[in-house]
């Protein structure tokens, strides 16, 4: 298998805040989950 997008690591899976929006510009404008960054975490 060749990963196009790497999977989240264990700590990100549950306990770390994961950006709720990622790709959606509309939601990213509204998102507070990614430590204040409006960019996706990857």
């Amino acid at each position, binding site marked *: *298998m*060749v990963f196009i997008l790497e999977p*989240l690591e264990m700590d990100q899976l549950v306990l770390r805040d994961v950006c709720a929006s990622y790709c959606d510009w509309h939601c990213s404008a509204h998102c*507070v989950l990614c430590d204040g960054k*409006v960019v996706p975490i990857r």
Partner: protein
Amino acid sequence: MKSFKSSKYNFFFKTEEGVKLAFNGISGGFALIKKENEKIISKFIENPNSKIKNSREEKIFTQLLHGRFIVDSSIDELSLLKMRFWNARFNQRNLGITLAPTLNCNFKCVYCYEREKNANKPIRMNDKKIEVLEKFITNQIKNGVKNINVGWYGGEPLLEIGMIEKISKKIIDICNKNQIPYNANMITNGYLLTEKTFKPILHSGINFIQITLDGPPDIHNHFRPLRDGSPTFSIILENIKRFVDFTEGKVKVAIRVNVAQENYNAPFELLKILEEEGLKGKVAIYPGQIVSDNSQIVCLLDNSFSDIETNFIEALLEKGWSFELPPLPRSVYCSAYLKNSYTVDPDLNLYKCWEAIGIDKLKVGYIDNDGRIRLNEENLHWLSYDPFEFEECRKCKFLPLCMGGCVSKIMEKGPDYAKIEHGECPTLRNNLLKKLISYYKFKVERTKFEGK
């Protein structure tokens, strides 16, 4: 001895050319399956406890574990999602506020959901309220907030750019004193985005702006005229061009194209115009679905809109435009699910969603004169809404990517919402695989991805 099982959230699918791909909804792992490994992968997915015969099989098994396509059989994946959801929902470190400095607007959009209900509301934030807002921010930091994100909304926020600059300065000063990161964005119609506003926007720490253009001039001007009916398209377009040149990428600009039946082709036509105007690479563009009770608008069904989304992504890909990530795992559907996220009107009433602004029955509380949040029972409805209560959501393979869908639509159903059978499914349910395939093509065509 350890035993394993296949994830409930695996998607195995192929492109029209026969390229096989795998995606896992919990981990977001997205992988190309090489032809020579197909059989081994099938063997382990069908029976994760099959004997590993050699080092090649061992390598592939490890990759399947890495992507969480296979998991330890003791893991309850639904519990993991619940943890992810509740942990995010009651996180107190982040504060998200969508601030409406005014409910006044210079536009008369045909699908506007604010105009009628806000007709008799205070339309502008006064100085006393601004002082209270300052106290509120200070209190929030004392209570442990480590991150502040403000979204400027309205009405039309640029009608009050002076107030925005003033409030922003106060919040930024407080954040700087406390070494807290601050981010801000703005949803504007773009008509007043003139040179006069450029510096105030930058000084206000705004790093993202969304502007709506609903297609080519005739459609846009029909959908989004000034209050007196005058056209707005060409002025907004010129404003955007000057703004992106002035800000040189410091402020991201996204163009939202609201789509209904009468303008279903609008995103594609607008893309051509933006390209001719030299905006490729300077702005992002995406279609938005109009959901309106207004009889002047015929809304699209979800599956029709899903097709527009995927066809539009194909068009972006073909024309070399910037490309969004595909749907990925999320903790909650949107910030309306979060305890520490509010939409704030000029009178400092609180709502959970910007679409609820001005609807009295959806008000979840207010900020009192000491800058403290006072919540009511409506807040309880929003924060206790739990997609895991619905059998259909619990069984759904899309749950890690959706997490219950639009809570605002659920709340509009009133106190009986618990009787409904499922959450509000987003369009990704219709087009997830197509979006993933487009992303794969993007990686192959535009990056050094050498999976082939």
